[in-house]
Structures are given as C-alpha cells and as structure tokens.
C-alpha cells in the first residue's frame, strides 16, 4: 500500500481492513475447496482398506456365494468363498449390447447434427437429446421395464437392462460426436469434395477418422457412466446367481451384486471388494478417456 501525504489514520485503517478481508476470503476459498475433495480420498481410502483383503483369484473366477455358504464362512471366521464372476460377465454382456445399440445411432445422429445443425429439425433433435440426458436413470429403468420386460422378453432380462443403459448412453455419444466433429476444419471436407469423393465416404473416411479420438473419449465416458448404474438394472436385469449369456434371462451385474451383498447381512463384508473393483474400473475408464482426449487433440 502506498501511503501518501493526504491520508489520514482512518484511511490506513480501512486499507488494512480491506487487505484482511481479502486474506480471509482467500483462506476460505482454499479451505472449502480442499474440504470438497476430501470425501473422494476418504471413499477411496475406505474401499482400499476394507476391500483389498477380499480380492484374490477366486474373486474374479467364481460366482457369488449363496447366503448359507457365506454364513458358514462368517461363523468359522474364514473369508467368504466365491467371487463376482457372474456380475462381471453380466455387466460386460449388458454394456456390450448397450454399446452395439447406442454407438451407431449416437454417432450417426452426432454426424447429422454437426453437418445439418442449423435446420429446425436438427434443433428439435438437439433439444430432445438434451432432455434425454437429463432423464433420471431410474426412469429409464421404468421405460425399459415397460418396453422390454413386459412386451419382449416377458420377464426380467439382460436385454431390458441393456436397453435402459443404451438410452442412457445415447445423448452422451450424440453430444460428444457433434462437438468433436464441429472442431474439424472445413478445409478437410472441402479437399475431399474437391477430389470428387462421394458424401458418405467423406463422412467415414475423413470426418470420423479425424475426430476418432474425440468419439472414443465420448464413448468411453458414456460406458464408464453406465457401468456403475444400479437403479435401472434393479427394474430390468434383476440379478442372477449364475453366469449366463442368454439375453432373455435375468443376469447379474457388479453394481447389482453390491446391492445384494449390502442387503444380506451374511455377505456384507463382500461389498467393499466389489465396490473397489467397480470404482477402480470406472475411474480407470474415466482417466483413459481423458488421456485419449488430451493425447490426440484435433490440431
């Protein structure tokens, strides 16, 4: 602070007060920001501490134990036998099916929006994709129940679960595709057109390859979003104690198994290892996706 001749004592005091306020404000910003991320560290810490002990080879290769087996093991103070193989296969099955449904439709719609984004129809499609993105996942579960469980497989099924997940992935993929393709310089396209390349080839030989990293990031993020979803699967896939690849039968999924373990007092100790696995996988995909985005950014 510059003290000049005309300043009186009260001015100096005011100056000091302002500086002090500034300091306090900064400390509060830093303090609150640090507190905001502490839960993340606490959650990871808790999962690692409680979960790591349960993870072994069996954990990935055997199906979930039934209540009796678990109870006997708990009573004898042994580790609970079995693993989450049925959950892993179920999750994979549903995510793969959801991807098969959502990726083509999402990418093509994204291409449409980036190519013809100014038409009225495109505006409508964009707003609807926005609305879809905001629909709570449990409501998508209700939808998939009404569509698939009731009318197609007449019972809980993997197909129903994957339909719910696919609707969830769609708007995410549409949005990321549109935004990626918009960043590709028009000159790429013009060069291809000038060479007489037909339109559909321009799309899949020029547009999509040059935006591939962005598309991949969007797809991976969408997958990591739906992998951890529990609520819609409760109403659709239901869960199963066996490994099954029949899409018309109920299947389990890792988050569904966590829910089952949580509700069964005998198996409660399995929640941490399964959660650790689930979260590790989801965060891994997340970080991978962002890595890809950074590494191959469109120049």
């Amino acid at each position, binding site marked *: 602070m510059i003290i000049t001749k005309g300043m009186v004592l009260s001015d100096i005091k005011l100056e000091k007060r302002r500086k002090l306020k500034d300091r306090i404000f900064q400390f509060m910003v*830093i303090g*609150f920001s640090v507190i905001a991320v502490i839960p993340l560290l606490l959650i990871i810490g808790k999962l690692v501490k409680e979960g790591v002990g349960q993870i072994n080879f069996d954990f990935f290769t055997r199906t979930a134990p039934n209540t009796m087996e678990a109870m006997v093991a708990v009573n004898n103070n042994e580790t609970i036998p079995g693993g989450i193989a049925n959950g892993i296969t179920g999750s994979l099955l549903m995510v793969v099916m959801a991807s098969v449904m959502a990726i083509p439709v999402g990418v093509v*719609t994204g291409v449409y929006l980036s190519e013809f984004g100014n038409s009225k129809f495109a505006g409508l499609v964009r707003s609807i994709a*926005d609305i879809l993105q905001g629909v709570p996942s449990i409501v998508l579960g209700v939808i998939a129940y*009404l569509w698939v469980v009731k009318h197609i497989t007449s019972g809980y099924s993997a197909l129903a679960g994957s339909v719910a997940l696919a609707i969830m992935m*769609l708007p995410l993929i549409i949005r990321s595709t549109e935004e990626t393709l918009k960043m590709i310089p028009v000159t790429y396209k013009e060069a291809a057109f000038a060479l007489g390349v*037909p339109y559909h080839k321009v799309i899949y030989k020029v547009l999509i390859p040059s935006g591939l990293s962005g598309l991949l990031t969007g797809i991976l993020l969408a997958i990591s979003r739906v992998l951890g979803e*529990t*609520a819609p699967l409760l109403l659709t896939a239901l869960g199963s104690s066996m490994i099954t690849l029949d899409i018309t039968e109920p299947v389990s999924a890792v988050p569904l198994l966590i829910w089952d373990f949580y509700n069964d007092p005998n198996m409660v100790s399995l929640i941490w290892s399964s959660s650790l696995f689930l979260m590790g996988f989801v*965060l891994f995909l997340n970080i991978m996706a962002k890595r890809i985005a950074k590494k191959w950014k469109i120049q």
Partner: protein
Amino acid sequence: MKSEKITKIVLLVTAGLIILIAAGMAYSLFGGAMPVFQKFGLKFIISSDWNPTEGRESYGAMPFIAGTLLTSLLALLICFPFAFSTSLFIGEYYRGKKIGSILGTLVDLLAGIPSIVYGLWGFYVLKPLIVNLGINQHGLGIFTASLILAIMIIPYATSLSNEIISLVPNELKEAAYSLGATRREVITNVILPSAGSGIVAGYVLALGRALGETMAVTMLIGNANIIPDDLFGMGNTMASVIANQFGEAEGLKLSALIAIGLLLFLITALVNFLGKLIMKKLYS
C-alpha cells in the same frame, strides 16, 4: 448424386429415431400412469396417502415429491460454499497452475464414483458419524441423504462455473486491479456480475442431477412414506420409492409408481430446461 441423397436420408432417419425414442418414452409413461390418474385424478399429485393394502388402496405422490424437493434443495444449499470455492480456486486463484488442474481432476473423479458406492460410504461412514455427533439418533433421514447428494453434485455444479469464471475477460479484472481493488473485490464486483448467470445455470443443472439420484438416497433417507416434518426426519424420494417398491408392485400400485416416474421425468425436464434457458441467454 444418388449416393449423396441416400447418405442424407440415412442421417435424417437416424436422427429421427431419437425423436421416436423420446416420443415412445413419453407415450409409455403416460400410458402406464393412466390407470392411477383415472382412479384418483389429479388428487394423486397432492394426496399424501400411500396405502397399498388391497381393497383400501390409496395412492398419493406428495410425500415423495416433498422428499425429493427437500433433499435436492438442501443438497444444493450444502454444496454451494464448496462448489463455489472450488470454482474460484480452479477458475481464478489457480487458473492455469498445476494445483488448479489437480483439483479439477479430483473434482471430476467425484463424478465417476458410482451412486451405490456413495450410498455404501454414506451408510457405513457418514451415518455413524452423524449418530456420534448427536445430530439424530438413527443417522438416517433427509439430512444424511442431502449431505451425500451435496458431495455427489459438486462436480456438476462446478464444471460449468469453472469455465465461465475463467472466461471473464482479463481487461475487466485488470481495470479493477488498477483502481486498487483487492482480489476479493474483483471477485465480488467484476467476476460475479459478469459470470453470475452462468454460475446459476450450473447450479440449476446440478439440481436436475440431484432430483433423479436414486441409490445413494435410497440407502440413506430412511424410506418412510410420509411428508418429512423436519430436516432430520425420515422420508422418501420419488426415485427411491420406485427403486424400493417397483419389484413387487402390480396393478394399481405399479401404475402409481410409473406415474411417480412420469412426474419425476417432468420435474427434471423442467429444471434442465430452465438451466439451458439461462445458459442460452448467457451466450446470446
């Protein structure tokens, strides 16, 4: 030129599929909700009766609407100081610095944790903590659910405002600094007025997220089908009642749950629409 036409048609039809899906969703929800609205009329929305006993069946959505709004708004309130500080940390104080981007990554990771894991952590860590602190006896209820929701929506509340705060033109800030303003004064007098609506839009979108959260809330709210009478009491949200009761529901009860799903869909769509509207105003 024929292939060009075909390509255009394929693009158009695929995009049209999205509209078809959305229309189908609305149709199915309305259709499924019809029986309960036919029986109770619009009273279904304001009634607070929830009685599945056969013969005396009576359904009302009010306890769940109240529970949803209460937990979400409380969560927004709790998350505000943290989210706002984080945005300033990333978008202003440590913009472009390593520590700023580290905090940004950590906050992003918060969004990657599955809802059920938040629920478990809330149940096994937060709940005992709340009991020990003497806030309430059983540790479950509106407050606990809001607390976990607040943590969950921090990344959504910040992502937009980080960006908007960091986009405030340097000239504006420098002008204020050159007049002798402190950083806090720059923030309150320059950054907030110019980034304000963007920050608000971010919180509205975060509210939209909170409204539909299911698993974590279901595990912590206590699942009582009543209009919560105080912030530490138990309650139920629209999402959690569906998650809890859908499995064994049939007939009129199923229709009531679908109707709740429809109302939840409409409420979140409205909130998201508001958020988008504020954003649009901002960019135009």
